[in-house]
């Protein structure tokens, strides 16, 4: 009977763990982490929503937002989700060459997004919106800055993954490692979907 109490995990075919749920512990941990990240970004978005109208000095949101530019950035990040899922698909086919190709393209698209954000922050600062100019400025930079840091961490993870796959340094299930990074990357994308609508498209 004892043998029925557990079943093999998702990655057990590659010498990995046997888990009590039959699911990969890594994947379970990643989803729990992403669930907790919802609370982090929920707090930041709520704070922004509360303070976006609090502008005692400095520019108003609708005076500085460049919607066409941010729309292009959003499109770039959205397309990076496509390239990421193609990387996961290639990894599941054990196609290392295409996995690395799609991961690299994803990292480049992510870098374009972060570059756009740096440009946007610089433009806003020159237009008079500093971090301490107003509550709107503080909450805006905190929210979008936290998101930008998440994207930057994702780029580092992607490039590290490319390096590890190239050198065959990934122990266990390679496809699952790509999928874990992919989950993080897609989460960053879905958070931006919310931020783009609530912060940029809905006026203060």
């Amino acid at each position, binding site marked *: *009977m004892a043998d*029925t*109490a557990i*079943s*093999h*995990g*998702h990655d057990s*075919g*590659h010498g990995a763990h046997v888990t*009590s*749920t*039959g*699911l990969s512990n890594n*994947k*379970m941990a990643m*989803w*729990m982490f*992403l*669930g*907790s990240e*919802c*609370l982090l*970004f*929920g707090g930041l*978005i*709520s704070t922004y*929503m*509360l303070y976006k109208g609090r502008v005692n000095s400095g520019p108003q949101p609708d005076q500085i937002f460049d*919607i*066409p530019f941010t*729309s292009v950035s*959003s*499109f770039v990040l*959205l*397309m990076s*989700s*496509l390239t*990421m*899922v*193609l990387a*996961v*698909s290639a990894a*599941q*086919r*054990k196609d290392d060459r295409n996995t690395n190709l799609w991961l690299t393209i994803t990292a480049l698209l992510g870098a374009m997004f972060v570059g756009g954000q740096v440009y946007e922050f610089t433009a806003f600062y020159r237009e008079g919106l500093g971090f301490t100019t107003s509550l709107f400025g503080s909450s805006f930079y905190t929210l979008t800055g936290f998101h930008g840091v998440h994207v930057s961490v994702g780029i580092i993870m992607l490039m590290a993954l490319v390096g590890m796959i190239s050198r065959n340094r990934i122990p266990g299930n390679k*496809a*699952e490692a790509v*999928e874990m990074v*992919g*989950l993080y990357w*897609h*989460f960053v*994308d*879905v958070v931006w*979907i*919310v931020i783009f*609508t*609530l912060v940029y*498209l*809905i006026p203060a």
Partner: protein
Amino acid sequence: MSTATEHNTSTEHADGHADEHHGASDKQYIVIALILAALTAIEVSTYYIDFGPLFMPTLFVLMTVKFIVVASYFMHLKFDNKLFSYLFYTGLILAVLVYAGALSTFKFFLQKG
């Protein structure tokens, strides 16, 4: 004998060997990305075209649809074990409820209404 603790996904084999393919095909992913791009274009169009009283509902519906499509297809929640969906959506719903409650204490929704 099967037990309640067995939660293998549809793509896992009996010996626990990981799947060869997991999720939609590459062509399907490209079609989904094109749909997401089209939805984004509609979102951006609300900035240029007056949607009147439909402005906010349109944006919220598009945002929600895009979120669910990415989570379901690109993050594979649609194809994976339901436990992953529960973990993620529990966090998400908890966040929405907690912060909607917090914003209510500031009379945020009354001020906007």
